[in-house]
């Protein structure tokens, strides 16, 4: 069934279709409408779930974790300050291997105060042990969220998943979204309960782990996270068989075959870059696009395979890791190191809602092309659009 939905509505429908059982969420702009929509589903009876009206974001994550430990399928939504406030609990959730799914409606972190889109909030949690997916449009928000439950709950993974989409650009923009049938999703997402807190099988969770244990827990956790890239391929393929929509696995290429200069982006910039690539191709440029769908674990192998003909790579980052540069720029260089000597030109753009449109990406492309032809070494990173 096709409907006009904004990103928040798409996320709410995904929660409904996934039959989430516990919603623990605390309002924050521009994510709150997604939470309200789900409470509306609960009120009208189209979703059977308990809403815990927590007093803070920290408690939202804690309540979702508690629900997961006791065997339910929870869901929550947040961003920016809320996500930062949850940070401590994010680590507990991944460390305890609980497959909690959370929508993150990316927004810039204060200070200075901002309500506008940017991916720095999610990037700041890159070491928290969560799987992180980024979506380019509202259909992908719905589809990735549904895939996220199956991915996180996979026996070989058992990890929490963040599904990212940007505030306003996605959360408040309506697009056509095709909603799958409930029966289809029920078959795709069977509920398998694995309570850690169960009176029939008492266990102690999160006991003190000394030096003889802690590191091994971490080894297994990291191995499970690495596993998520391959499982995402399977899950995406299964979803494609069901719905006909294939978002690819960890990465997706566009016009890459003979591309010499490749734009690399995640989130809404991907759809902008797609248009920019088409325009550049019309001008005879050998431009291509590599979409990063999976940011954590970072799909280094898929990235290398996706860039066969590239002579220059353009990392487009809507985030700044202070003193280092853009997260994608850094990851791309690390992924290619020792494999290919392709220069990575790293750009910081679009922070705090600053516009980054088709013309901007085309201009960056031309800059990079000139530098490439001139044989210039890329700067560590540069700011675009100041």
């Amino acid at each position, binding site marked *: 069934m096709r409907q006009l939905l904004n990103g928040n509505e798409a996320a709410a429908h995904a929660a409904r279709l996934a039959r989430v059982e*516990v919603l623990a969420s605390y309002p924050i702009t521009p994510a709150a409408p997604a939470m309200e929509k789900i409470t509306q589903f609960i009120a009208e009876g189209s979703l059977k779930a308990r809403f815990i009206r927590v007093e803070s974001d920290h*408690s939202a994550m804690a309540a979702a974790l508690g629900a997961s430990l006791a065997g339910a399928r929870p869901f929550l939504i947040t961003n920016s300050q809320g996500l930062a406030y949850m940070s401590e609990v994010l680590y507990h959730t991944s460390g305890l291997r609980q497959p909690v799914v959370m929508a993150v409606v990316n927004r810039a972190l204060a200070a200075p105060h901002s309500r506008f889109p940017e991916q720095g909030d999610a990037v700041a949690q890159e070491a928290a042990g969560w799987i992180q997916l980024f979506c380019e449009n509202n259909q992908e928000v719905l589809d990735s969220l549904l895939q996220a439950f199956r991915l996180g709950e996979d026996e070989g993974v058992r990890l929490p998943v963040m599904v990212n989409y940007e505030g306003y650009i996605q959360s408040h923009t309506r697009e056509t979204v095709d909603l799958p049938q409930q029966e289809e999703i029920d078959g795709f997402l069977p509920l398998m309960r694995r309570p850690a807190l169960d009176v029939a099988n008492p266990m102690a969770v999160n006991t003190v782990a000394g030096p*003889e244990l802690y590191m091994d827990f971490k080894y297994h956790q990291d191995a499970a996270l690495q596993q998520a890239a391959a499982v995402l391929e399977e899950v995406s393929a299964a979803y494609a068989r069901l719905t006909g929509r294939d978002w690819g696995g960890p990465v997706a290429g566009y016009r890459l075959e003979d591309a010499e200069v490749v734009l690399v982006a995640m989130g809404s910039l991907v759809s902008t870059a797609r248009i920019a690539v088409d325009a550049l191709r019309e001008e005879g440029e050998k431009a291509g696009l590599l979409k990063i769908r999976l940011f954590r674990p970072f799909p280094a192998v898929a990235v290398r395979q996706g860039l066969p003909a590239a002579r220059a790579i353009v990392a487009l980052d809507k985030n700044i890791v202070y003193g280092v540069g853009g997260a994608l720029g850094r990851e791309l260089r690390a992924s290619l190191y020792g494999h290919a000597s392709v220069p990575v030109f790293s750009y910081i753009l679009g922070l705090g809602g600053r516009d980054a449109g088709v013309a901007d990406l085309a201009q960056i492309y031309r800059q990079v092309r000139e530098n490439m032809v001139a044989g210039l070494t890329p700067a560590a990173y540069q700011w675009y659009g100041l």
Partner: protein
Amino acid sequence: MELINSLAAVPDTELFTGGHGGCRGCGAALAARQAMKALGPRTIITIPASCMATIGGSGLTTAWEIPFYHSLFECAPAVASGIRAALDIQGIEDVNVVSWAGDAGTADIGFQSLTGAAERQENIIHVCYDNETYMNTGGQAGSATPYLAATPDTPAGKPTPRKDMLAIMAAHRPAYLATASVAYPLDLIQKFQRAREIEGFRYIHILAPCFKGWGIKEDQTVQLARIAVECGLWQLYEEVDGRRRVTVIPERRLPVREYLRLQGRFQTMDEATIAALQAAVDRRWQEVPS
């Protein structure tokens, strides 16, 4: 429900067992052992960072015979809310969900999630085991630390009085509220028995001395807990629907000086301060209906 009326009638089964990592004479461990006699095996407990969180499980061993989750410091009542929601959605009804926190996990860093859960009238029991300091990090002062108690970070004595958590929690109008003491096990056990029969938010505050923090000997834990009641600084009562019932009227009344002078932490308290405290206790003693 039949109340346990004698120590002989207390079930033998230990659900918080020996072999835990607490110090000898730990008031907190005693409180847990006693409470579990009433709560029984169909109980899920979550304990935030504190002595109790660490002494109940270490490495691959645990002293808990029930499901136990050592939660983060701020959020045991929120975790308990999530557990309850998960049980409800699965149709599991006969399980007690307990968040069990120290005085910091209750009154300080844990207060936000506690007041939230109480306001939502979550169907959980929150227990504060109160040793009046931050023992797990070395005994620093917190809001539950009494006036002029010396701690590592208030060496000259804490300059402000203790926060009145019971008044604060009573203002939330919980379904059940009680004080308890490890020196009165039957009273404590009966309160947990009554609490588990009631639905809604229940708050039980247990005075659980810590010899290290209080400057007493390991074998004085119960003695001090008892004297706290006998001198009137800690009253044993319960409130259902806001109506208070005093549950223990001590047989003898002792001056507060006796309580204070037995402890290392009140050494800087002068006689005038003790007299003022005694006057305050006397006034309250008269107000409380018995």
